[in-house]
């Protein structure tokens, strides 16, 4: 069984005017969708958090305060753009771009629906379908580290510097866990393309459950990905980057006006993209039982519904969990999530061959797990020997 992804069928005949027009329409729609959903997401988050804390939340701008984020965003255009004099001016100006542009780009690989046909052209409902698919996401989150790191460094101020060093170490640590969780999905799909990952999840598992990766891979990669992506986004409970009590505003303390707005935009855009990626990788993407008279619209509704549930989960986490301490954060990433997901991946590989091989890999993993626990207790006594 091998799902070779041929990419978006839009480009089979090369590029002509109609194809270029289709590309432009898709890109503009995706761009507008992202911007509008960020505005909605900020409002949604504030409203839900207010409900959880027995407050009313924004209720002045528009019905139920729905235009609040638009008002806030517009206001930021009229605010003074400060450039601290200790800042490294060029990099200080560059950093918001490095944060915002990857945030836009990583949404490109998310399949939001099936295919759509117009004239004799067929196109997939996603901005782009490159063969390396999900690796593109990892590449973009690798670039996003630079935005945070350089923003803090170039500010020439204490709190941003501390925040950015913390943040980049955190993002880098959880990127490894993220990559390992995705590798499990690739193992079951046999392809890196997000479209192939989504089509590989159609159908039923043992005639009851949908054959989504969350069930097929035994939940562990799903939860690892969920935790690691929350940490990668620097969202609560992993928001040590901007822990207000310690670091004022974290890496973007010195930023104001539209430069600050771009960091904020990137953060929420990444939240939306990551939730969409979780849906794509583990929850079958636009797959779901449904009414076929709605044709191409129905999968999109499924996709939006699932993404909304995950966004609610993100808000819920923020409303309930207290922030982790830095050593707890690093311990969770390095000593639990990374070894756990690596071992789970290899066990899955064994199980794909036969049950016996799965057990053999499990046995080896238990040995290494015991060694790891021993190493942890040794390490706890020798802290300070290396580094500090």
């Amino acid at each position, binding site marked *: 069984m091998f799902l070779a992804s041929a990419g978006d069928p839009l*480009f089979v005949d090369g590029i002509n005017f109609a194809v270029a027009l289709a590309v432009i329409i898709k890109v503009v729609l995706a761009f507008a969708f992202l911007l509008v959903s960020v505005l909605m997401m900020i409002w949604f988050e504030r409203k839900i958090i207010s409900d959880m804390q027995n407050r009313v939340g924004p209720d002045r701008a528009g019905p139920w305060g729905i235009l609040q984020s638009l008002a806030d965003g517009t206001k930021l255009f009229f605010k*003074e753009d400060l450039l601290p004099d200790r800042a490294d001016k060029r990099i200080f100006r560059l950093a*918001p771009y490095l944060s915002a542009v990857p945030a*836009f*780009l990583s949404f490109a690989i998310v399949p939001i629906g099936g295919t759509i046909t117009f004239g004799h052209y067929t196109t997939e409902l996603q901005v782009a379908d490159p063969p390396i698919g999900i690796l593109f996401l990892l590449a973009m989150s690798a670039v996003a580290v630079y935005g945070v790191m350089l923003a803090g460094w170039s500010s020439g101020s204490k709190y941003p510097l501390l925040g950015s060093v913390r943040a980049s*170490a955190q993002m*880098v640590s959880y990127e490894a866990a993220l990559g390992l969780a995705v590798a499990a999905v690739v193992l079951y799909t046999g392809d890196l393309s997000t479209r192939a990952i989504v089509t590989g999840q159609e159908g039923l598992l043992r005639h009851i459950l949908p054959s989504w990766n969350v069930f097929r891979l035994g939940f562990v990669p799903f939860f690892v990905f969920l935790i690691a992506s929350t940490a990668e986004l620097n969202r609560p409970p992993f928001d040590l980057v901007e822990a207000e009590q310690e670091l004022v505003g974290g890496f973007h303390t010195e930023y104001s006006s539209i*430069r600050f707005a*771009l960091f904020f935009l990137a953060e929420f855009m990444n939240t939306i993209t990551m939730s969409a990626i979780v849906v794509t990788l583990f929850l079958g993407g636009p797959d779901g039982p449904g009414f076929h008279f709605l044709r191409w619209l129905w999968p999109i509704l499924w996709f939006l519904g699932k993404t909304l549930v995950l966004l609610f989960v993100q808000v819920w986490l923020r409303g309930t969990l207290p922030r982790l301490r830095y050593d707890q954060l690093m311990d969770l990433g390095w000593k639990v999530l990374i070894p756990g997901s690596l071992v789970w991946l290899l066990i899955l590989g064994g199980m794909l061959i036969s049950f016996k091989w799965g057990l053999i890999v499990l046995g080896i993993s238990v040995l290494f797990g015991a060694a790891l626990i021993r190493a942890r207790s040794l*390490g706890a006594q020798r802290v300070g020997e290396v580094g500090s």
Partner: protein
Amino acid sequence: MTQYLPILALFIVAALFAGLSFMASGLLAPYRPTDAKSAPYECGIVPDREPAERFPVRFYLVAMLFIIFDIEIIFLYPWAVIFKETASPVFLLVEMLTFAATVFVAFIYLISHGALDWGPLKRLRPMAPISPARTSESTVRRIRPAARDEAA
């Protein structure tokens, strides 16, 4: 190659959006810098020291360890892609197990040297000595109404 055309287009749109917002903000926003505004923000306290120039070596170890895992992950992806189609999956699995075990040994070595322990040294705090003389009668002072009246 053409599959990346939409990404290029989105890149251009995103960069244009960011650039145009800066321009718009430059036109709309006031610009009246003062010494106080352009000083590093320290909650109102006048900054008198440069930000720290050096950071704990442990950050370097984290980045080093990340490179190692990143290389492992980047090998895992092609491995995962061909795992289902290959004629000899057992061979492939053993290969990757050997590789992962070797990397894991390095990881365990690092952990056992406490290189990833960030917290303060976890030590047992000596227990507060308990003496039989310390009861609620001897340690808690009760303010009797009489004493309060005398004080007043």
